[in-house]
């Protein structure tokens, strides 16, 4: 049971990768990459979780109340920002790829064929 959150992270990572590998559309592939990235949010927050802990906000509760790790929460914030920027750049590339090749199917890009 205590392994379940970590298993969820592994599952999200792999299911997102599966989506990228089998993708027929670049927009879909970018969305799948976001799924892969969300596995890191789950992993970070799972590592910082303290059983029964509250959020690390001491506005309503006194200092000393058991709370989850604020460091991993801050890292998850960085993670989200980086995820958003990566998605924006990849979507811009997808727009240009569509203009150049007239398709979003990665298998149809002739110039990229090995």
């Amino acid at each position, binding site marked *: 049971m205590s392994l379940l959150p970590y298993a969820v992270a592994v599952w999200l990572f792999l299911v997102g990768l599966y989506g990228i590998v089998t993708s027929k559309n670049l927009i879909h592939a970018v969305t799948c990459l976001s799924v892969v990235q969300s596995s890191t949010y789950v992993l970070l927050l799972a590592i910082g979780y303290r059983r029964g802990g509250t959020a690390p906000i001491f506005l309503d509760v006194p200092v000393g109340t058991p709370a989850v790790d604020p460091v991993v929460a801050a890292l998850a*914030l*960085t993670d989200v*920002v980086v995820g958003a920027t990566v998605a924006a750049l990849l*979507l811009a590339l997808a727009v240009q790829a569509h203009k150049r090749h007239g398709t979003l199917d990665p298998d149809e890009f002739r110039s990229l064929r090995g």
Partner: protein
Amino acid sequence: MSPRLRRRVFLVAAGAVAALLLWGLSGLPAFGDYAGTYGTVLNRVAVDERHATNVVAAVTFDYRGVDTMGEEFILFAAVVGVAILLRAQRDEAEEPPDEDADDRRAPGTSDAVRVLGLALLGPIVLYGIYVVAHGHLSPGGGFQGGVVLATGALLVFLSGEYVTLRRVGPETLLDLAESAGAGGYVAVGLLGLATGAAFLANVLPLGQPGTLLSSGMIPLINLAVGLEVAGGLVLLLYEFLDQTLVMRRQGYDI
């Protein structure tokens, strides 16, 4: 490689990666048995040291403020990158679109979306400002509030026309907001150097914990980040919407 073969190769590799990851992760402390030192210490001392009741904000904008500055510039660089990638190509028409031509007319907006969008605009902007301003007290901050503010522009786009949006949010103003946000973060950091402390040291009066004017420089940094994120995201929105116009002009099927 055929799709089928590719899938098989992936499944074998994925099985191996899953086994490796689960093996590694099972060596971590069990879920809920958190034993990290930094988190425990910060939860104890952050409110006393920085007078910020939101410890996550204290970590993000103070204890590791230099990292967050880098993060902010990642966003800045990404917006510039998207603008460069989507800049007008040589063979693309640059004249404003003839939106009234029959074959180019964008689908009309329903009255319900229009009314609801405009009715939500005020509350959303107010909420965004609230989230930015209270980042050091309660969950939120510059990044989150900036995104909320940027959705205001999306609402204008949804409920009106793109042309209206460009008029109420001109690009020069957004460029200014984005650069002022990015530069403002550095300027707040230099404040520390100017008083003889370290870069990004929290040198302003800390105030009473739990009040709006507390935590020294954290609200200022939140404000800078909020400006940067809101400006940057709306610019991203413009770049992509411009592409729709370009592609509609060129007769793409979209």
